[in-house]
């Protein structure tokens, strides 16, 4: 992961997303208007959170297999950055919700799911701080991490199918299919998703390397 090429791709995509996302023409839709640009920022942040938490869980699994504290450190770093992106997605969603739905936090399955995802990972950090022994901390938190991610997947997979959501694509609202036909939106959106994910991976990469060095210094 220390190569340069994907970082350059990330920078190019992010500059394009942020600059062109604000400059491009967007379809004038009822109630959405200019807020539709949030599609380039809010939605990819959630994708990034899920990718980072998935990687965190995979490193938890690897830790369980190999019992090397290195993987535990990486797993925690990814969970930290994933949580950060979750909070960012939450804040952008709240701002957007205020101007389109009239409330910062309407009762919506996706909002509840997101809030619970963040709560679960806060519980994960509390669990980590409650155990002193390094090995024990690593395996307990890896177990909780895997369990939490599975519950999160169930939650986001099952619950939205039981109820209607206010979000686009649910409950009779126009979904991404109808936006896809608008090339102006998809031109930015399909660049924004890999851009944000690469940015998240980069931050998590730097963070995990920093944590590994800190652990090395501490053990000396």
């Amino acid at each position, binding site marked *: 992961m220390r190569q340069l090429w994907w970082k350059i791709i990330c920078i190019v995509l992010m500059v394009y997303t942020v600059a062109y996302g604000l400059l491009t023409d967007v379809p004038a839709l*009822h*109630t959405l208007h200019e807020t539709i640009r949030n599609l380039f920022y809010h939605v990819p942040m959630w994708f990034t959170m899920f990718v980072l938490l998935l990687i965190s869980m995979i490193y938890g699994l690897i830790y*369980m297999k190999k019992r090397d504290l290195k993987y535990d450190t990486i797993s925690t770093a990814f969970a930290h950055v994933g949580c950060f992106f979750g909070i960012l997605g939450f804040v952008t969603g709240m701002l957007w919700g205020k101007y389109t739905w*009239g409330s910062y936090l309407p009762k919506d399955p996706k909002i*509840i799911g997101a809030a*619970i995802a963040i*709560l*679960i990972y806060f*519980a994960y950090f*509390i*669990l980590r701080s*409650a*155990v*002193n022994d390094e*090995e*024990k901390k690593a*395996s*307990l938190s*890896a*177990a*909780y991490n*895997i*369990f*939490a991610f*599975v*519950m999160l997947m*169930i*939650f986001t997979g*099952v*619950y939205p199918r*039981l*109820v209607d959501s206010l979000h686009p694509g649910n409950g*009779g609202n126009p979904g991404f299919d109808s936006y896809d036909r608008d090339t102006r939106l998809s031109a930015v959106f399909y660049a924004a998703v890999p851009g944000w994910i690469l940015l998240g991976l980069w931050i998590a990469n730097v963070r995990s390397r920093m944590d590994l060095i800190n652990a090395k210094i501490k053990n000396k």
Partner: protein
Amino acid sequence: MNFSEVKYLFSKEFQLELRRKSGINSILLFVVATTFVSFLAIDQLEQAPIWNALFWIIILFANINAANNTFRNDSENTQLYLNQLAHPNSILIAKTLYNAFLMSITGVLNYLCYSLFLGNLISNHLLFIALIIVAALGFAAVLSLTNAISSKASFNNSLMPILSLPLLVPFFIILVAQTNHLIGNKEYHDFNYSSAREGMETEIICSNLIAQNDSNNQKEQTYFLATDLQQKTRKVAYVGDINFENNQPIILKGKEYKGIFYASSIWNKANISAISNVKYYGALVLITIIVLLVGQFLFPKIAKF
């Protein structure tokens, strides 16, 4: 996992409980005390959402109390000994089954107590007791695993609720929705219209809701022409986007403002379809099975400490 092992471990838990009687008694005390305190504050609970919320809150904390001692009842030496005798998966299954048994008893007793003190809004008692038992299995699956994790950590008393509460939310969302379905055999919907803040809270029983499109008002796009059954008049009512498929009477609660009725809740006296029941119970069972499988995978890896 070995069935004979599970059988022996389950009977061991059961016999220990019969000998001590501390676990079940403390939970009973908890349930009776909480319902009694609620009774002191409210005589009869008639609002469905509050009935629903209070019922599941009591169940939640009673269950967390019940599961808190799952792994700490055995001393460290006993745990080592058990790990030599049986596979960790059998231990977890036996503890989960025992917890599920304890939690179903708690749930049913809570239901009795709650009906006695605060009134009963449920129409189909058997379905609701089935819901309590299915929920108890799910809670037991989650709480046993989180207790296994938290019992290894320090400050485990306060850690257990922190770890388990967010993981139990998926269950509660389904349970609350299904309880709303079962309450009074009515379908319950909640709306909040900001324009209906003034005026008195009223209730009308009506039929023949006819949907109309309102081109002037952008936010509330559809309204209904409701026939008031008591005053034999027609009213304009905003009730949100709801499909009324049957011609049975509907109870609208809300406020009347400038001749327009803004509903805050709807009671639809429709029979709940079997499909919706199957959907909710099925979702609960599915989540429980997944949690059990995850527990089978994870528990042997943390049982060593």
